């Protein structure tokens, strides 16, 4: 979230699209209700199904799964043609005025630089026209046709209401009514918040879905302000923490990137990370990357990281491909390229696409380690559970080590919520039986592996040997010790050049501004610096005081970065430093510094007249309507059909789906055709359950006991499906036999003149736990992910459905 849960109450319009906040985030949803009741907010829901969020919405419109970019581009077209943008904001705070290179173009579904042969882009044209001074050229009058705003207008001009309706199946009048409601927030003192989740990320165009709405929000001036923002509601406790500490194959803690094998030296790595400002006078915060990186290396490798060793750069692994995501991992397993797998708090047999492929991959492993408080399907993948898991145990040689671990209530630690708060929690009970903490297990593995390497040697043990491990009990570090390590500390006495205050070596850092690139500071995750200081554990704070009652509660837990609750909050004030919305100010310039209810996302003493843009993390100081070369498929979002789609791409038939989607050959053959699988399916959670965990809990199992799919009345009638009757839902990859919920809440959509039916597939049931046995939605889903992040396309694929009888056990 750019903003914070409590801040949702300040919104005038709430749009839930690409998510189902009431069902997946019922507790946080209280703030939407609060916005409605206390702030008179209007709630808009756009979803293929009429969800429980829609049941309390002021306005609902249906949409075909996988067409959000068309909807949002149509919305941008509406805002631009009806002049419903916040001009001063857009002109000053976005890159609307900057000029784009002449060579940049878009034609027939492809941006300039596409290489047909290897499906790749030469992205050199996706950038600004630079002047002789090295700065991007701009035209503040927007007369120049190469201005970002003019290119955007042109790009979205194809998305007329007719076209939106033709692609999305959303009735035109509903689309236009929503445009109108949203456009009402283009004035400075009204804000809209966008609440989204996996309904946007789980597509081959996931990142671009989100970008499209971010662009809408920028055009409306809704970023950085109270009640605004792009608010990703994280779907899994502690997925925010996971990404923060970089537990992805291509990441380092604090959203730094793991080097690639082309970056053979530290200098080479830093070359692309100098972040020279592209406009005069900009902060361009990432010019500090050296400080962040060196401090991380000191935390990881301690004394082995010195100026002479290039801060132990060579001890980091280097990537040979963009990333080793989970789809890739299972492809490797199936190809015999991966022999062992450790699943820590992860249940891929339920959670990853194409269950058959997942089961086959696990069956080829030499060993599988599962660490989980629950008896997961993954740890039982080898066992025959009947049609829901038809494993042939005698053919499977994988050795499975099932390690029961404690759960969150059985240990101290912190969780990071969607609003970036690190909240400390305390152990409430001892874990049952022989369950041990993850820390105990990981530390044990580490110690034993290191001892083995010491004894027997091996290929490049250097990183493992040099790893710092300074814990009181090296066999079971305390959560508090790790928290302090991530916060970071001074390694030597350091005197601040501005304040002249000397900090003692060994003391904890107060914040990331103290980080240095000379090896005198260490921080395991720079964005967490400030969370555990000499003043104590800031994450353990529980003071709910809320200045101005705007929902920020700055002394409750601790939010990264720097305890800031609203990111980009400089943009809550106009260029002169006065709040756009005087009723709900966040920060403002008081003549000598920035003050307000939040920690300024800006140099505190930087005058408004300094021409330093509010988006200090970018080299322009501005937010980007034109995304430059940061994403793989283009600087503007474009509508591409899902990999499995019932229709052609009416905008550009030759480029139907995302040209940059990575598809493995075997998976491509496993995509179904609309002639065989005529219906669009989408998967989702229900509020009664949390993923695949709560089916192990009796009460949750009582509340939603058994697998089902949701089918509209029209299709049910056509197919002779009875309410609660048994159906077989099949995709090219497998079939699910379960009961049908025949509902009014899914209506056929008129897509390009054809009635298109959507089938809803809730995902909670498996073959372990208390609830009734189910096949699992991932039996059906295709093994392909977002072109940037490889998040699987769970939200739009093709199935067939027919009546059948109950499965025989």
């Amino acid at each position: 979230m750019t903003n914070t849960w409590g801040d949702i109450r300040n919104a005038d319009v709430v749009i839930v699209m690409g998510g189902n906040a009431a069902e997946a985030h019922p507790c946080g949803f209280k703030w939407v209700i609060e916005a409605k009741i206390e702030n008179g907010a209007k709630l808009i829901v756009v979803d293929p199904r009429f969800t429980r969020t829609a049941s309390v919405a002021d306005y609902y419109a249906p949409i075909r799964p996988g067409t959000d970019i068309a909807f949002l581009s149509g919305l941008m077209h509406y805002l631009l043609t009806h002049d419903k943008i916040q001009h001063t904001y857009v002109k000053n705070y976005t890159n609307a005025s900057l000029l784009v290179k002449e060579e940049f173009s878009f034609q027939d579904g492809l941006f300039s630089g596409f290489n047909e042969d290897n499906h790749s882009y030469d992205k050199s044209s996706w950038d600004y026209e630079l002047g002789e001074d090295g700065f991007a050229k701009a035209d503040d009058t927007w007369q120049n046709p190469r201005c970002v705003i003019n290119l955007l207008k042109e790009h979205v001009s194809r998305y007329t209401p007719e076209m939106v309706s033709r692609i999305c199946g959303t009735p035109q009048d509903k689309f236009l009514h929503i445009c109108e409601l949203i456009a009402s927030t283009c004035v400075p003192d009204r804000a809209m918040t966008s609440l989204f989740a996996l309904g946007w990320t789980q597509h081959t165009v996931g990142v671009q879905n989100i970008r499209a709405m971010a662009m809408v929000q920028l055009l409306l001036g809704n970023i950085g302000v109270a009640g605004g923002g792009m608010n990703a509601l994280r779907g899994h406790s502690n997925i925010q923490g996971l990404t923060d500490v970089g537990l992805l194959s291509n990441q380092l803690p604090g959203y730094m990137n793991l080097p690639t094998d082309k970056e053979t030296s530290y200098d080479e790595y830093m070359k692309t990370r100098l972040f020279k400002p592209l406009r005069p006078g900009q902060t361009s915060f990432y010019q500090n990357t050296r400080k962040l990186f060196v401090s991380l290396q000191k935390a990881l490798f301690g004394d082995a990281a010195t100026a002479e060793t290039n801060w132990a750069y060579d001890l980091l692994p280097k990537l040979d491909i963009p990333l080793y995501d989970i789809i890739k991992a299972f492809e490797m397993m199936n190809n015999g390229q991966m022999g062992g797998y450790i699943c820590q708090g992860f249940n891929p047999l339920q959670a990853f696409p194409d269950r058959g492929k997942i089961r086959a991959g696990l069956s080829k492993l030499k060993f599988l380690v599962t660490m989980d408080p629950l008896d997961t399907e993954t740890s039982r993948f080898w066992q025959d559970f009947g049609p829901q898991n038809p494993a042939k145990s005698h053919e499977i040689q994988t050795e499975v080590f099932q390690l029961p671990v404690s759960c969150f209530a059985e240990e101290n630690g912190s969780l990071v919520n969607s609003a970036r708060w690190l909240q400390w929690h305390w152990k409430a009970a001892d874990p049952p039986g022989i369950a041990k903490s993850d820390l105990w297990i990981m530390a044990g593995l580490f110690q034993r592996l290191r001892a083995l390497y010491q004894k027997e040697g091996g290929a490049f043990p250097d990183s493992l040997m040099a790893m710092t491990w300074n814990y009181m009990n090296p066999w079971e570090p305390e959560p508090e010790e790790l928290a302090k390590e991530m916060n970071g500390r001074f390694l030597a006495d350091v005197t601040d050049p501005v304040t002249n205050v000397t900090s003692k070596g060994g003391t904890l850092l107060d914040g990331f501004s103290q980080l240095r690139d000379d090896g005198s500071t260490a921080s395991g995750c720079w964005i967490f610096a400030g969370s555990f200081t000499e003043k104590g554990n800031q994450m353990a704070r529980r003071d709910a005081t809320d200045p101005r009652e705007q929902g920020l509660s700055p002394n409750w837990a601790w939010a990264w970065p720097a305890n800031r609750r609203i990111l980009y909050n400089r943009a809550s004030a106009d260029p002169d430093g006065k709040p756009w919305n005087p009723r709900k100010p966040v920060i403002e310039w008081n003549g000598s510094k920035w003050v307000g209810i939040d920690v300024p996302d800006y140099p505190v003493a930087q005058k408004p007249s300094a021409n330093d843009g509010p988006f200090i993390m970018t080299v322009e100081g501005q937010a980007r309507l034109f995304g430059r070369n940061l994403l793989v498929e283009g600087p503007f979002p474009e509508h591409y059909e899902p990999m499995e789609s019932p229709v052609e791409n009416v905008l550009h038939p030759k480029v139907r789906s995302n040209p940059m989607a990575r598809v493995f050959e075997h998976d491509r053959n496993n995509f179904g055709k609309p002639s065989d699988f005529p219906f669009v399916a989408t998967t989702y959670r229900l509020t009664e359950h949390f993923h695949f965990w709560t089916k192990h809990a009796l009460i949750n199992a009582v509340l939603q006991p058994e697998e089902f799919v949701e089918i509209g009345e029209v299709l049910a009638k056509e197919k002779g499906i009875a309410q609660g009757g048994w159906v077989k839902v099949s995709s090219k990859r497998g079939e699910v036999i379960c009961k049908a919920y025949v509902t009014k809440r899914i209506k056929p959509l008129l897509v390009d003149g054809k009635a298109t039916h959507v089938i809803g597939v809730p995902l909670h049931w498996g073959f372990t736990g208390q609830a009734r046995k189910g096949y699992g939605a991932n039996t059906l889903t295709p093994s392909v992910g977002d072109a940037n992040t490889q998040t699987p396309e769970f939200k739009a694929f093709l199935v067939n459905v027919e009546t059948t009888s109950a499965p025989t056990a």
Partner: protein
Amino acid sequence: MSDLQSQDYIRRSASTMTPPATRSHEEQVAKLIDVSRCIGCKACQAACMEWNDLRPEIGYFEGSYENPNDLGPSVWTLMKFNEYENEQGNLEWLIRKDGCMHCEDPGCLKACPAPGAIVQYANGIVDFISDKCIGCGYCIKGCPFNIPRVSKTDHKSYKCTLCSDRVTVGLEPACVKACPTGAIMFGSKTDMQHQAADRIVDLKSRGFAKAGLYDPPEVGGTHVMYVLHHADKPSLYSGLPDKPHISYIVQAWKGLYKPLAVAGIALAALAGFFHWITVGPNDTMREDEDEAAREIRETKEEQVP
């Protein structure tokens, strides 16, 4: 379930005399359920099961999100879902938390033949006192909302207690505490009526011209009230009665029949009295006494093995 002190009773089943309530300061309480902000998450159901230690069996999917499929001796509250297409052709998904309404004039209590098995406290809560329940099921007949259910295990009737055990120590009912959107509120009945009035103004401004409070006068008002978007059609909400009423048989049982029966008993007594006055007491003859003595003797002999 729970039993507060009898000083708190204002009504008691099958009792001509309710002990006089010695505590006069107690406020009437009410639970207000604002269906317009209910998201049907069932946190209330889970909290009810947790607090009251209820664990119904894991059921089946039966064509809706309603699970368990009905109220039961261990299901005291249940979310009910109705897909409704309004006059404009737009869908509304009307979700209502079902459970005991705690009527001011409780039909269950009226119908109950077991002395003290159903009571009403001064704060308005209607409670079942299980150890006095005889499991006859008359309370089900008496209830205008079809709420109580008799357990097949212990043959006693159960329903929502409005968490009388929590309320008596100053806590809100468990469902109220668990509700994430504040759709379930609890307080004095007057406060809840004021809350509802505010909500109704908001709903009317959002196009629900017939929004209103459900506090049906037919049962003397209820201590569980709803804010409805369509107060003119309560039955849209999964069969919430438009005009709830206590079954005529039950009303007759306590209304018409009871005085009639009393009158009958009185008449019989009077008739006996006048018979005695006019005819005099019945005397027995010597033959009658001998006959009786012989019968007693014979019966005793038969009993000897």
